[in-house]
């Protein structure tokens, strides 16, 4: 799965370097977007059956597969809890942001 790569935004020096109106190459991300998250999903990976139902339901598209494991991109996860709600095995737990699991 392709995860968007964060690109550093360099302020253009001349107006000609700006895109013409708000139209630019897709996938050009300059900022992370997760600061309003108060709850964070944690996957109990040892019990996960990798059914990917959470991946299908995530409205932000931040759940992805890496090394045959399901992972969450916390730089963009808003903490909505849909993944925890839909997980058939109930192995995703929502914890308060700032707390650590275990």
């Amino acid at each position, binding site marked *: 799965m392709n995860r968007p790569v964060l690109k550093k935004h360099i*302020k*253009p020096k001349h*107006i000609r370097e*700006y895109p*013409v*109106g*708000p*139209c*630019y*190459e*897709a*996938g*050009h991300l300059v900022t992370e977007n997760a600061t309003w998250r108060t709850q964070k999903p944690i996957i109990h990976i040892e019990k996960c059956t990798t059914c990917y139902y959470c991946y299908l339901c995530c409205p932000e598209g931040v759940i992805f597969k890496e090394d045959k494991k399901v992972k969450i991109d916390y730089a963009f996860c808003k903490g909505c809890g849909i993944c925890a709600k839909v997980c058939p095995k109930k192995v995703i737990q929502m914890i308060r942001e700032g707390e650590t699991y275990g």
Partner: protein
Amino acid sequence: MKTKAFLSGNEAVAEGVRLVSPHVIAAYPITPQTGVVERLAEMVEDGSIRAGFLNVESEHSALSAAIGASAVGARTFTATSSQGLLYMAECLHYASGGRFPIVMMNANRSLALPWSIYGDHRDSLSLLDSGWIQVYVEDAQESLDMVIQCYAIAENLKVLTPVMLNLDGFTLTHTYELVELPTKDEVQEFLPAFDTPYKMDFENPKNMGFSSTPADNMEFKYQQHKAVLDAKKIIREVDAAFKERFGRGYGGLVDAYKCDDAEMIVVCLGSTTGTCRTVVDELREEGWKVGVLKIRFMRPFPEEDIIHYTRNTKAVAVIDRDISFGYEGTVYTNVNSALAKTGRDILKLNFIAGLGGRNISKDNIREIFIELKEGMEGKKKEHVRFLGLGVSVDE
């Protein structure tokens, strides 16, 4: 032999749209624009336009749909009037900020309350700051020709700004005239298919209509301002090329009639111009040195042309079919700002006329010139005057 047809202003616009062949038409009917939508629906049905006609549930949806179609690079057309234009106000800024070259016809009509379906310019002039190019036409031929020119202006990659084509409600939309029709081949040669790199494209995916932080937002607004200013040159070039190809030119941003040696000039928009020209001719026969300056484009504003054509003038009157309550007419505010830059001492008077469809008669125009003459002779004049009020307003 040239083809001619007897058309109303609305029908002339529809014929213009048929000739430019947009891919998508999304419009909601409203008096006095309804004729345009009806005619276009018939043309789509009988196959004389190969366009998708979107039946939408409101004006807000009509322009939103046009924006969506324009985002994939389609040529799009919409039309509205009055309350409908106000209802799409939010989308007007989306279209101009997104740099979508949509062409929209607006039938100028009064705004409620009191409810009125008749003409004035308060609808479009109240949206002068929405980032659209605004053109005002005076007859059916100019309406048809300007549909073609509007696309050439909007789709120019240096401009990429939507254009609003304004016709006086009823006075122009419902008046029949003999109109010369160019052929579809001629028009398509003059206006090639729209091709833009700024569109949604599977081969070249884009992020369109994104947000921006305070660190970048102002640069996009500067760009928009520059594009509308640069449109002045494009407007003149398109008009010259049109004249070369079809034999009809309209003077670019303004149309000056007998202004060169005029001591007194009346400035106006749209269909009032014809009445003004007749009065100018009559007064010239009586020895008055008078002229009329029609402002065709309110945005970009033809500051240089106004200064040029009033260079020998001692007095200028601006007719506004509009009033910015508590101050003066919007056309006057703009003209006054241009004239103030010359530093010349010119008498300037503002006449509010024709609100809510009130007729602007030859006698009214003659009265304006008399007011200017008396003002030049030193008689004190009201700066902003409602012309043709049917009652006394003396305190």
